[in-house]
């Protein structure tokens, strides 16, 4: 019987230390980059918020004026890409992460504000706009995923179609208010188009058939696409807010 060389315990410990350092480094880097993304999202939200407020203010200022001075153009295409980014973050960082949840809540509020403002402009100026409010949930809802794809497709096809998506289960009073105003059932997905509720999955063709007026807001033959991809790995919300046509009001010519 021979003897083995004794185990080099010191090396076992040194390697443990190095491995732990690498591991902690990996975790730190992941957190650092995730926080950077959260910051980026916060920035976008704050920009959109300023844009919205500015639009609201302009609209209020110009309320007495004629609609011909109110031109509709793209406000914040960021609101769109923001939806994708929040969806991605829910998967990447976690949909129970407090930062992500609060960003999502804030995003929902911005959507509602944008919706109300746009509706006011449309009503007052008789523009052709179609609004879709889309209610979904993240858990156990394959149809919601599919509905997300459909709405993304419609949004690409009809840049003036405005889709606002809301997480049915998000704990925020304004979404609950919308749910009760439009009597949105819990059989999701559900969409509200021009005030009418449709529950269950609807295909692109279903929606186009139900709303022939979509044709009137169809994209030009070669639309300029400003939006980012919604085809991230995320399958949860996938969705939607659309190229908001918003008012950027021309300087008013006051006649003396």
């Amino acid at each position, binding site marked *: 019987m*021979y003897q083995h060389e004794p185990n080099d315990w010191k090396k076992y410990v040194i*390697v443990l230390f190095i491995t732990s350092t690498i591991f902690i480094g990996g*975790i730190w880097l992941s957190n650092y980059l995730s926080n950077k993304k959260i910051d980026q999202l916060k920035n976008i939200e704050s920009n959109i918020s300023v844009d919205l407020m500015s639009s609201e203010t302009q609209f209020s200022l110009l309320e007495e004026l004629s609609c011909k001075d109110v031109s509709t153009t793209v406000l914040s295409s960021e609101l769109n890409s923001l939806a994708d980014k929040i969806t991605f973050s829910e998967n990447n960082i976690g949909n129970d992460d407090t930062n992500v949840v609060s960003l999502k809540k804030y995003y929902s509020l911005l959507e509602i504000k944008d919706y109300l403002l746009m509706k006011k402009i449309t009503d007052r100026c008789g523009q052709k706009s179609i609004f879709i409010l889309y209610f979904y949930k993240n858990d156990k809802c394959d149809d919601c995923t599919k509905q997300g794809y459909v709405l993304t*497709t419609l949004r690409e096809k009809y840049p003036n179609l405005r889709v606002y998506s809301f997480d049915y289960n998000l704990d925020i009073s304004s979404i609950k208010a919308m749910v009760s105003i439009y009597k949105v059932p819990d059989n999701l997905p559900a969409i509200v188009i021009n005030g009418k509720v449709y529950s269950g999955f609807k295909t692109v063709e279903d929606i186009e058939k139900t709303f022939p007026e979509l044709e009137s807001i169809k994209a030009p033959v070669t639309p300029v*696409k400003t939006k980012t991809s919604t085809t991230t*790995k995320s399958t949860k919300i996938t969705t939607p807010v659309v190229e908001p046509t918003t008012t950027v009001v021309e300087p008013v010519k006051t006649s003396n």
Partner: protein
Amino acid sequence: MDSLYTSIFYVFSFISVYVQIFFLVTFLEKKRHIIKHPDNFELLSYPTVTIAVPCYNEKDTITKTVESLLALDYPKDKMTIFLIDDGSKDNTWELIQKLDNGTNVRAFHKENGGKHTALNLALEKNTSEFFGCLDADSFVHPQALKRILSYFEKDPKTMAVAPSIVVYNPKNILQSAQKVEYDMAIYTKKMLGFMGGIHVTPGPFSIFRRKVFDDLGNYHKAHNTEDQEIALRMQEHGYKIDHCPDAYVYTNTPNSVVKLYRQRLRWIYGFIKNLIDYRRLLFRKKHGAVAMFTLPSGIISILGVIFLSTTIVINIFKFVKTKIIQIHTIGFSNFFNLNYKFEWFFVSTKVALFLSIILYILVIVSVLIGRKMSEGKVTFSISILYFIIIYSVIAPFWMIRAIYNAIFSKESSWTFERRVMKN
């Protein structure tokens, strides 16, 4: 469920990184001790050596194997070659009889009984100080024997020395991927050699002192992996096993997935069964690195590969499923009209991703060091990618099957595998 999964992932990746770092630290610590022999070096003395070549249906390769042995740079009167026909069904026996020259090449025939019985017959006839084996699908570098024997000369405590196995003439992607694996193994084997943790003395050209068999007995069947069992038996008794990185043995590797699968099934099955037989070694300090490092990391690597590879495959499957649902939902034309634009934001920052990247970098570093040791230069080639992809996809199959077979004791036979290999 999700957090359980994440915890398992962390545990596996931590241990995998630990093992790789351990090798790397050993390499940095010992790299000066990696010997590269000059072509003209001489041994102080030339002891007698017997090389046994067990044959089962080897008519196509046996001549080349014997020629390579005869071409070894070693005094002819000090080396004997035993060709043992293990009841071949082809004309191997006629062939090796012709090779028998009555002096240093001898041919023997026996009823088919498995590789270990052929080796044991050779051991019974052996009178040399050193004994080795060479599989009939392999052939040796002319300097291999001298280089290996220099390790015995340097350290009288060294009882066996394993060679570096190099893939001979890889012809397809699968063989190129195996070449990468074998290159990496040269590095890891040497590091295990430094640590005293080698757990296989491979069939192709591992050389032993005769004392090993005199003291510990002949080869066992050992679930058709007698080369693992003899190494574990030696480790149990504290017999030192080293590795000679520049003793090259060229081996033919399986050229199809099915053949590779059969070979690996036998290896992993053998590993598991031998591990069970030698479980008494596990975590016993007195048995050195093989007990504390090699065997535990072997277990982890089987489970880890199954877990990590299955995860990758499931994720790819999920991704494809998502895309299919998407196309099914919105139609082909709409799908291809969607705007795709790259943005850094959408690059994952999950911890798992960083850990996987670290792990893959460490694996690639191992391959590169192995190449440096086998070819003398660091070369980065596309075959590294083949290796990672192919093994990620197919390794779990033979590992899972090996575990299944081990539980239900379904052996994969050597002769059956040899038959398959030739077809």
